[in-house]
């Protein structure tokens, strides 16, 4: 099935280069895409556990009604910081880490196009998150307005306020530079015969994601800059008395915020589109239609933002437009789900851990998609708004969606990174624990929301007790299960498993499987040859 030359490894590996430098300089001065990718992945794992700890504080408080462990102000700080850390610190950098590691390998490039800027994109993140994290210790505490930072509430933040704004600026700076690097790498660094439509889906979805990042991160920077000047320099952007409007912030924020959710899911689509063909032993069904579907989703993501604001007050025509535009997204998303399913049709399937996570993704992300469709309906949304139904919806698309996509990617490519297989049995245990607990955590939230439990409140009415207890137990179980993930990855990085072959899996498609495992420090110093015009199309 593989149509890519696999017999001339030595052409791809340049032995004249020296290996990595010793000591801390390798990491701090890094320009190697693999080193930078590794740093991104480790950083995002650390952020995943920080944000996860905050989630567990939230769920512990919500285990029973009443206030038992933390005061409401701190609860609000936890919900806000949990979201900011998970969105900007865990999911986004993890996908950038995958992009760094895999895109040059998948397109036959020697490195990312702009290696020094690549280093800076990463090393801004620890600065941004140390500034954000430090707000927990400040007078007035960490930001507590929700990650959406709506004025006028956010303007009541204490000393943390400017630190919040500037940390967002830094995250945006990092994302923009990362996105530029991804775009330039993909457009300018492909192996000579790799035309755009022959690119692997992961590369395609990342290309589209990078354009989304470039288009919306500056808008977020503009929005938070207006918050800053409203607070400190007397402007009236969000002050009705001055002719501004707090709702304007919501428009600008969600113009960023809705493409942002696709920024977090499109690379996961790409990952799943790589994995399912490998383990179904069939080429991806409808490769080109996948490209068009992802592009359509990206385009539509720019014209649906106000569905986050149906209850805020907007002309009826606006509500109608944003409702129908939102529901339209179900069409290209349906194309993708159909194609993944059709890829498996009559395939000779096996169920290794990456495939299990991809199947988990397929089922559970689709549930999140359906609840999203429900939320798109204006009269229904007026009921669901700000309830736990919304929390259930976006956690279904983010945890068994984005996070499962990331997990699948790590298991899929880990043997290529370390040169050794992970422990398959432990990987499958990790999958089943994660899947059971993720449903236990978030599925009851649908019922809680439909029954009227509001989100972002530390206390609740007693009739919500049972489902909340179940969700809290699930959350703690999910958190503990991820320790197993760290153990498995660590064991694999310590080269405890059997040695991986060059192809790693059973005849997978793609250039990354033509370099040795582990991938040498420098790969594709001279471009590889792609023999057949049918690769990935």
């Amino acid at each position: 099935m593989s149509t890519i030359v696999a017999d001339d490894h030595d052409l791809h590996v340049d032995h004249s280069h020296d290996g990595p430098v010793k000591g801390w300089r390798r990491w701090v001065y890094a320009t190697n895409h693999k080193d930078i990718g590794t740093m991104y992945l480790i950083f995002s794992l650390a952020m995943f556990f920080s944000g996860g700890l905050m989630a567990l504080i939230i769920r512990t408080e919500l285990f029973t009604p009443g206030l038992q462990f933390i005061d409401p102000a701190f609860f609000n700080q936890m919900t806000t910081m949990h979201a900011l850390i998970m969105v900007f610190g865990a999911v986004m950098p993890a996908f950038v880490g995958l992009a760094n590691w895999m895109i040059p390998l998948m397109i036959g490039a020697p490195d990312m196009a702009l290696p020094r800027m690549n280093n800076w994109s990463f090393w801004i993140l620890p600065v941004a998150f140390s500034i954000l994290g430090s707000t927990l210790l400040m007078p007035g505490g960490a930001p507590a307005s929700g990650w959406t930072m709506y004025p006028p509430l956010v303007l009541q933040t204490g000393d943390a306020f400017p630190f919040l704004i500037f940390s967002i600026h830094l995250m945006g700076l990092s994302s923009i530079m990362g996105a530029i690097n991804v775009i330039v790498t993909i457009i300018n660094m492909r192996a000579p015969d790799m035309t755009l439509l022959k690119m692997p889906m992961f590369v395609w979805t990342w290309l589209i994601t990078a354009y989304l990042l470039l288009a919306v991160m500056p808008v977020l920077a503009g929005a938070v800059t207006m918050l800053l000047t409203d607070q400190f320099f007397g402007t009236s952007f969000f002050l009705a008395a001055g002719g501004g409007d707090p709702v304007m912030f919501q428009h600008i924020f969600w113009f960023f915020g809705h493409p942002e959710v696709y920024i977090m899911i499109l690379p996961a689509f790409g990952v799943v589109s790589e994995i399912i063909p490998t383990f179904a032993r069939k080429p991806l069904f409808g490769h080109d239609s996948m490209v068009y579907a992802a592009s359509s989703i990206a385009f539509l993501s720019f014209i649906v933002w106000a569905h986050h604001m149906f209850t805020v007050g907007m002309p009826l025509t606006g509500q109608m437009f944003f409702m129908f535009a939102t529901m339209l997204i179900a069409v290209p998303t349906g194309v993708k789900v159909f194609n993944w399913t059709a890829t498996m049709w009559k395939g000779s399937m096996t169920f290794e851990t990456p495939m299990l996570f991809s199947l988990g993704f397929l089922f559970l992300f689709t549930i999140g998609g359906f609840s999203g469709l429900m939320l798109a309906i204006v009269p229904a949304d007026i009921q669901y708004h700000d309830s736990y139904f919304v929390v259930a919806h976006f956690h279904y698309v983010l945890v068994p969606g984005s996070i499962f996509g990331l997990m699948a990617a790590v298991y899929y490519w880990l043997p290529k990174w370390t040169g050794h297989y992970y422990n398959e049995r432990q990987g499958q245990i990790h999958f089943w624990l994660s899947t059971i607990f993720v449903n236990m955590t978030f599925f009851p939230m649908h019922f809680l929301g439909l029954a009227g439990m509001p989100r972002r409140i530390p206390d609740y009415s007693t009739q919500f007790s049972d489902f909340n207890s179940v969700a809290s137990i699930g959350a703690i179980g999910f958190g503990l299960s991820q320790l197993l993930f760290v153990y498995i990855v660590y064991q694999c990085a310590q080269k405890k498993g059997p040695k991986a072959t060059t192809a790693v899996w059973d005849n997978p498609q793609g250039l990354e499987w033509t370099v040795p495992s582990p991938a040498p420090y420098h790969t594709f110093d001279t471009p590889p040859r792609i023999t057949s015009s049918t690769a990935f199309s």
Partner: protein
Amino acid sequence: MSNDDDRYYVPHGSHWPIVGSAGLFFLMIGVSVWLNGGDTGFWVMLSGAAIIIFMLIGWFGEVIAESEGGRYNNQVDMSFRMGMFWFIFSEVMFFCAFFGALFYARNMSVPWLGGDSNNFFTNFIVWDGFESTWPTNGPGNIGGDFEAMGPFGLPLINTAILLTSSATVSVAHHALLHGQRALLKVSLAATFILGFIFVILQAEEYIEAYQHMNLTMSSGIYGSTFYMLTGFHGMHVTIGAIMLTVMWLRVMKGHFTPTKHFAFEATAWYWHFVDVVWVGLYVFVYWM
């Protein structure tokens, strides 16, 4: 030119990014502390800014040396071009946020405060007697009565200056392409001088607005959008003029050839970008 021209140049480790991150750390912490009323923040901010300037000089210096040393083949050159192009695109989107705020205020929030659409009671109960007009500082008369900045006088002169400078930078580009170094030097110098004159006149306009027109950043939504749009634009003009000056110094040192001159072209693109933003500003902020 190096002999392995087909090989993409991948630099070995660089310490400049981490220096830049350290600079950003001190800059952001410093500004935040300063805004919260801590006086030490000002000095921390300055030290952060100094580190960033040091980083920019060092990093660009290294890249210029590599470029002049022939380390960059055409593919690297193309990477730089694409990188600059998409960077400018992200800058355009940044300005879009503020233009969006301006259009939203003029077409939605201000008319709604005046009772437009289904907002009769908003107007009647909360802001009785407020009529939707532009320019406005809102129903609360925030910042007190002010005079709006008209399209004639300084803004018109500035428009002429910036459009002229856009022409001179194009002349410089053509001169570079055809090897006319003398014309290149003169027209590039004219460009950055015009750029700095623009910045000085813009400052003059601000002084006039603050001292005689009571038009300040606090003059409601008009003052907010006016100063944020023209301010960020002025900042970009300043950066662009500094870039042009650096290009001029490099030209004087004999850098750039008719075929290899990425930095010059990137600067020219950037200059056209600030010019286009200005045209948008002139039409929507000053004129209409």
